[in-house]
């Protein structure tokens, strides 16, 4: 049993009868934390895995990890959210989301390793946690407020009228503790209240838990917000060792602003170049040329990828949300658009490709006033701030075309009868489960295969920075790649432990090999444990190669993850053991998806992936004509038959029935999941051993 990292208990709240209870963290410690614990809690507390995401019995978990609230670099501020979703299509899978900031840290300072919420309140409520005291409060005065207003109201209700640096007593009891912090609140906006399937969770200014539609799910539970404030601390097994590791990592792998190892050769492209050198503030890549601001990060981060802007707009918006809309060409309009999106609580990832697609339909004469898809929004002024404001509010409030879009763009397009045509032509590139294309599914396949064999767009960049962005950004600025393709693939293969560099060969044949299957499986297992269960940030980990680290470019992975785990928890965990635990969690998730209805036949992409050749340069390491190099990857499609054969071999590698894709008793028992095998067997969905 760990001697550090965990604070001892998980909070369970039943909103139907307003009861609460403590679940000992030790009961779930074998799962590591975060996602592993969330999946196990869901398995135990939701007997019927086939319920709808809006069903009151759906369990939503917000889990910290042993690293939350500690000094572990770029690993302290993430919160993992799970439950049955409402976003994906055709089945809204048991799924996950994740947001940064300080929520999980504050949750642990209050003495909790996570919170699991089930049931449905008859009236709007919010959950108020002050150290050990848990109250379910009336939220009728908060209902209708946007996400920023909601948090400000809760700060005032809990902390009173305190300015930023004021100390305050968080309870009236003796030794209740003092803090300078405001409560950490996660909440929903109007989009969530309206049960939108693309409603998200917002914490602080712009930390968003977008995928899955958890904003709408909390809306269905009549749960407006959850607030934590605490004055405790996190026990650390080896505090001095952890401090040393943090400083060592910062020194060896951080971007030294005073004396950078790798500087952008083109200052105007520092945002793009930050994808490979990690310079502070590089995240909001559309904003770097104009507008003052300063780097900002999540709790405990040593990278600080975001920017707090002079205008106060767009703060905390670090990733795709910054790209929501920029049609006016005015930075301030772009920041205002994403701020409004944060305030109404809509998931940008379901909307960022929606308005450009809909503009195309408008131009085609399909959409607009009196058209087949009626809309009175000002489509003729698409590049004006008035348009994006009207569009954003329409979706959040289910007015005009938003009445359809609030169920997600995919469901809207299906309703309009355009899904087959537009995903075949590529006008709407949404490859799997109704999610937008993120990285090219015909080329960068550990991303697309992982998404298809899972539940959502995986959104895991650790390999992507190296194999795609390094050669792409250097090519864009006229530099030679920072590392030859063969060396890059070899070092990734060695660092991961997979061993075979061909796992990172993205050639037309390389994407179907057994080596690729092992690379994809490694990616699923690593991320399930270290990123999603232990909370290591996607924009920092894994760190297989680091271009700030002197001439050798050595990264922190795989040396430092187990060292950090040992320093925090006191538990020895080998690299291999960590990956095996990731595999166990991945298999438990797979079993839930199978119970929900997953079949082999469903694991296919939309037609454009197979039929429409790539026509934009997309650099990746590849073996072509017997030589390693960075291929431009033009004219490529995914071959249906070869992918189908790959699927068979991938299933076998994972220990699943190759004819159905279902886990087998032998495979599950090997992972200590015999009772999961029993449940699948009882549902008639257990894969055949050896098939």
């Amino acid at each position, binding site marked *: 049993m760990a001697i550090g990292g965990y604070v001892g208990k998980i909070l369970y709240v039943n909103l139907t009868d307003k009861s609460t209870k403590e679940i000992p963290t030790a009961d779930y410690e074998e799962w590591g934390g975060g996602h592993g614990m969330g999946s196990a809690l869901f398995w135990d507390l939701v007997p019927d895995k086939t319920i709808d995401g809006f069903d009151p019995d759906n369990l939503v978990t917000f889990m910290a990890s042993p690293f939350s609230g500690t000094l572990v670099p770029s690993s302290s501020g993430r919160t993992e959210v799970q439950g049955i979703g409402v976003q994906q299509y055709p089945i809204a899978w048991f799924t996950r989301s994740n947001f940064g900031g300080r929520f999980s840290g504050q949750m642990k300072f209050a003495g909790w390793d996570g919170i699991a919420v089930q049931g449905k309140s008859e009236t709007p409520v919010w959950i108020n946690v002050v150290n050990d005291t848990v109250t379910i409060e009336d939220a009728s005065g908060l209902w209708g407020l946007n996400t920023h207003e909601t948090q400000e109201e809760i700060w005032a209700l809990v902390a009173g009228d305190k300015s930023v640096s004021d100390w305050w007593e968080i309870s009236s009891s003796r030794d209740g503790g003092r803090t300078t912090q405001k409560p950490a609140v996660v909440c929903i906006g109007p989009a969530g209240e309206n049960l939108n399937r693309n409603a998200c969770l917002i914490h602080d200014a712009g930390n968003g838990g977008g995928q899955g539609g958890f904003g709408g799910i909390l809306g269905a539970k009549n749960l407006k917000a959850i607030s934590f404030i605490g004055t405790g601390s996190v026990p650390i097994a080896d505090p001095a060792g952890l401090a040393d590791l943090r400083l060592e990592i910062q020194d060896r792998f951080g971007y030294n602003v005073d004396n950078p190892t790798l500087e952008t050769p*083109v200052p*105007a*492209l*520092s*945002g*793009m170049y930050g*994808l490979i050198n990690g310079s502070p503030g590089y*995240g909001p*890549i*559309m*904003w*770097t*040329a*104009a507008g003052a601001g300063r780097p900002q990060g999540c709790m405990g981060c040593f990278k600080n990828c975001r920017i707090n802007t002079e205008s106060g707009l767009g703060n905390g918006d670090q*990733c*795709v*949300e*910054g*790209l929501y809309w*920029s*049609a*006016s*060409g*005015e930075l301030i309009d772009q920041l205002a658009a994403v701020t409004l999106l944060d305030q109404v609580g809509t998931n940008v*990832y379901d909307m*960022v*490709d929606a308005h*450009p697609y809909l*503009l*195309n339909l408008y*131009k*085609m*004469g399909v959409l607009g006033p009196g058209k087949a898809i009626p809309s009175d929004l000002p489509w*003729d002024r698409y*590049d004006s701030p008035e348009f994006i404001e009207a569009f954003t509010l329409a979706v959040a409030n289910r007015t005009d075309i938003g009445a359809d879009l609030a169920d997600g763009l995919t469901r809207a397009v299906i309703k309009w009868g355009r899904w087959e045509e537009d995903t075949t032509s590529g006008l709407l*590139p949404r490859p799997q489960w109704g999610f*937008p*294309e*993120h*990285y*090219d599914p015909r080329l960068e396949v550990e991303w697309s295969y992982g998404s298809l064999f899972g539940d959502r767009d995986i959104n895991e*960049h650790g390999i992507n*920075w190296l194999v795609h*962005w390094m050669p*792409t*950004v250097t*090519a*864009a*600025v*006229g530099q030679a790649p920072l590392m030859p393709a063969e060396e890059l693939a070899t070092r990734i293969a060695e660092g991961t432990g997979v061993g075979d560099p061909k796992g990172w060969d993205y050639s037309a044949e390389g994407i179907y090999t057994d080596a690729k299957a092992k690379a994809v499986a490694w990616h699923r297992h690593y991320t399930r444990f270290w990123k999603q269960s232990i909370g290591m940030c996607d924009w920092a980990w894994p760190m297989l190669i680091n271009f700030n680290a002197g001439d050798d470019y050595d990264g922190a992975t795989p040396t430092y993850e187990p060292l950090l785990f040992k320093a925090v928890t006191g538990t020895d965990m080998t690299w291999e053991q960590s990956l095996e635990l990731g595999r166990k969690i991945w298999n438990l998730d797979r079993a839930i998806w199978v119970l929900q209805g997953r079949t082999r036949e469903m694991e296919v992409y939309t037609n454009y992936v197979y039929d429409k050749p790539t*026509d*934009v*340069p*997309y650099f990746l390491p590849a073996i072509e004509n017997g030589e390693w190099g960075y291929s431009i990857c033009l004219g490529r499609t995914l071959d249906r038959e070869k992918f189908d054969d790959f699927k068979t071999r991938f299933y076998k590698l994972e220990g699943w029935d190759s004819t159905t894709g279902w886990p087998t008793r032998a495979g599950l028992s090997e992972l200590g999941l015999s009772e999961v095998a029993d449940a699948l067997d009882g549902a008639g969905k257990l894969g055949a051993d050896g098939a």
Partner: protein
Amino acid sequence: MTEASEAQVRFDAPSLEFVQHAIRELGFEERFTVTKMSGGIGNTRVEVYSFPQLVNVLFGTKWDRLAPEGSKATLAWVDTDSLCRWLHDVVGDTELADAVRASLEGADYFKAQVDAMLPLFRERVAQYRTVLDDVADAAPAAP
């Protein structure tokens, strides 16, 4: 492109009709595709429906302020042959199309292409702006 070569570029002064045609809103079949590349969402296809929108997408700033502000940090990839054809055939600015084509000779990576094209767009946009400003100045004041 060097400053010396930039100084050699001269376009004929466009007429009001020419400018109005060049900056008009386009239909679906007349659109031009730009691919924006970003770490946050990968590659996204942006369908461009006007010359001002092209300038915004390509250089990252409002089209009529291109000269003072310069470009923002993003990769906006275009097929340069297609771009020149679109400028020539759809926008109707053959001089700009020809100048862009000539400037791109030897510019074989993104930064070099932006550096080559930017001065040409700046000069041409400034000319467009002058024509439109002259019309605005000549318009009778509102009562």
